[in-house]
């Protein structure tokens, strides 16, 4: 139990929608969500396939705890080959869509082929149909959801889809669900757009059943009682991190030219909670995903008098506001200290369906190209693309969402943009994916985590935080990164969020929930092995896709230009010293290829 033991397979080329039994042997070995979706993708598709071709598949995968009463049990993962990276993409989201898909009776939704014309998928339990999307193609995520909600008149119907960015194959287009939650990274929205699939509307009434409901209920309450450190996350959200990294000296600023942003105090929780000169307060309230007992989401309003929205009342309502990553990408990365401008750019990301981390990272790279004269007003369409320009940020964000003007260049992502204009070293990416909000010089473990992340630069594929804030010495970091990558792979595959781990839960709390909900014995050894198996499977996908040791690296700036201030002042990332130990600890050879013994131990032959 906990699994629905069914998958829904939709072939857009033929129009078929088939319900199939879940491969329980794979579910027992890969748990669900990220792990199980990756297993299906690996088995069913040639990893060398072009990400935007009909041969690529896109899988919406729930975990066994998705849709249960376990706290944060609303997560799902979009698994595909990433349009941004060419690597495996496992992009995780919250909101309420994942739980609804699970309650409709499906552990996985596998989309294959390409539709000859725009369609959307409508699911109500066993009733599944592909519908003409001509009336919603070209609409934003928000317009699409409003139109279909009015059509079906069911307030519990949930939507996950793309905006114009996905339609125009923006390389970092994302899948947005519930209007402001997103499977954000690696360009999964571009894959959906390449298939002419606009959105998925789902309503489920079947519920989700635990193995032993009474025991599960007790354990849910027991572990909730251990979530003792959640008040800060509820009050300040992840934005609390901005003061920490800025104080430590690891907040990427101006395309990683610096690791400290003097305008951070205009983007921090105090700024979000304090009235501005017009008496306007950015935050309205916090928000929670399905079954969440934390509520880290920010629901915010832009000052109606702000330049970005003063004549645009459609943006005067409350929606998903700045979290730490968006405050970095649309703030410090671009040198912008205007909280309303960054909030507006974030709204545009949700509306048009773009990953704000990659959008901000790419605009930051473009600002540096502009700063050194590699591009000028003739390229930008007259936009003064200077670090710190809130106006330029808002203009470029909107152009990118629409795929117009210089926005079409930004839509390529930082790597392709910097290559096009002759300065590939200015792209702060790994495997083509833009950095998250931590600098790998003052946080050496994070540098290793970025370099080795299977989906490209990512702050959520390992947990080096505690050790990184303790020391910049590299001893012990390879072990922490290697082991936490496996732990996170397991957690991501459960259907729960990672954030309870920062609010008092330990790995054991996740394991007890999985064990109580699912059949068979999920002991600690099995949990650790499952996490490692998932991590290595993702690695195997990437190797077959043509990625290798050359891609487990960092930009020249992080490897050769010392950090300018903070606790890591004078340091570069010592990746070359950590990487061999990391490979060895994983049971991989010197080229980062899992050995035969490792594959045999994990039943990956």
């Amino acid at each position, binding site marked *: 139990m906990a699994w629905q033991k069914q998958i829904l397979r939709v072939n857009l080329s033929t129009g078929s929608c088939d319900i199939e039994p879940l491969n329980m042997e794979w579910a027992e070995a890969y748990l669900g969500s990220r792990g199980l979706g990756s297993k299906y993708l690996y088995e069913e598709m040639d990893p060398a396939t072009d990400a935007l071709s009909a041969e690529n598949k896109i899988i919406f995968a729930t975990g066994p705890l998705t849709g249960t009463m376990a706290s944060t049990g609303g997560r799902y993962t979009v698994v595909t080959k990433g349009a941004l990276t060419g690597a495996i993409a496992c992009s995780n989201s919250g909101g309420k869509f994942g739980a609804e898909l699970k309650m409709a009776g499906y552990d996985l939704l596998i989309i294959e082929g390409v539709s000859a014309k725009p369609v959307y998928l409508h699911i109500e339990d066993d009733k599944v149909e592909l519908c003409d999307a001509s009336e919603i193609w070209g609409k934003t995520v928000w317009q699409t959801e409003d139109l279909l909600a009015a059509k079906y008149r069911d307030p519990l119907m949930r939507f996950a889809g793309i905006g114009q960015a996905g339609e125009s194959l923006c390389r970092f287009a994302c899948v947005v669900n519930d209007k402001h939650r997103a499977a954000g990274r690696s360009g999964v929205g571009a894959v959906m757009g390449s298939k002419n699939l606009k959105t998925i509307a789902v309503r489920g009434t079947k519920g989700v059943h635990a193995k032993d409901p009474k025991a599960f209920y007790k354990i849910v309450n027991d572990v909730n009682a251990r979530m003792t450190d959640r*008040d*800060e996350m509820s*009050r*300040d959200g*992840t934005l*609390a*991190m901005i*003061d*920490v990294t800025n*104080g*430590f*000296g690891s907040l990427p600023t101006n395309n990683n030219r610096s690791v400290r942003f003097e305008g951070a105090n205009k983007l921090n929780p*105090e700024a979000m909670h304090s009235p501005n000169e017009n008496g306007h307060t950015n935050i309205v309230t916090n928000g929670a995903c399905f079954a969440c007992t934390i509520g880290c989401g920010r629901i915010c309003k832009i000052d109606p008098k702000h330049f970005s929205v003063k004549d645009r009342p459609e943006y005067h309502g409350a929606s998903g506001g700045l*979290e*730490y*990553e968006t405050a970095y990408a649309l703030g410090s990365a671009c040198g912008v200290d205007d909280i309303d401008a960054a909030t507006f750019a974030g709204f545009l990301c949700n509306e048009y369906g773009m990953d704000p981390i990659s959008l901000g990272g790419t605009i930051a790279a473009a600002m540096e190209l502009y700063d050194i004269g590699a591009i000028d007003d003739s390229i930008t369409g007259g936009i003064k693309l200077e670090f710190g320009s809130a106006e330029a940020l808002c203009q470029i964000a909107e152009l990118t969402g629409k795929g117009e003007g210089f926005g079409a260049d930004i839509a390529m992502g930082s790597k392709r943009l910097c290559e096009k204009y002759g300065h590939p070293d200015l792209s702060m990416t790994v495997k083509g994916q833009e950095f*998250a*909000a931590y600098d790998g010089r003052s946080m050496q473990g994070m540098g290793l985590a970025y370099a080795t992340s299977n989906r490209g630069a990512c*702050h*959520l594929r390992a*947990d080096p*935080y*505690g050790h990184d*804030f*303790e*020391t*910049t010495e590299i001893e012990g970091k390879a072990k922490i990164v290697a082991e936490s990558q496996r732990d996170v792979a397991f957690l991501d595959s459960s259907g729960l969020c*990672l*954030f309870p*781990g*920062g609010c008092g839960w330990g790995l054991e709390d996740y394991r007890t929930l999985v064990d109580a909900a699912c059949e068979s014995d999920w002991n600690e050894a099995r949990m650790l092995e499952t996490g490692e198996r998932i991590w290595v499977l993702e690695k195997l996908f990437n190797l077959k896709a043509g990625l290798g040791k050359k891609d487990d690296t960092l930009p020249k700036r992080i490897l050769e230009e010392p950090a300018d*201030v*903070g*606790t890591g*002042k004078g340091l570069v990332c010592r990746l070359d010293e950590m990487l061999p130990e990391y490979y060895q600890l994983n049971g991989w050879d010197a080229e980062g290829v899992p050995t035969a013994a490792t594959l045999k131990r994990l039943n990956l032959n």
Partner: protein
Amino acid sequence: MDISVTLFGGLRHFLPAGSSFNKCTIKLDDGGHLDELLELLPIPAQKKYIVIINDEKVSREAYADITVHSDDEIVLLPPIKGG
């Protein structure tokens, strides 16, 4: 002497009454040490944090050996993660 201390993240909620958003001023005897200063802050014992003085992280073992100066920039960071 007056020592200015900045508490980031959730630590700011343990600032003494009357403090600004995330800063407070603590009175410490001249020649006082870091461990004495930290004891004057009303932070619960179970709360973990790291201390940075003038951009240098300080190890816990050294708290009692470090003499605090009035112009030191002292920052306390909670070990939070994610984002």
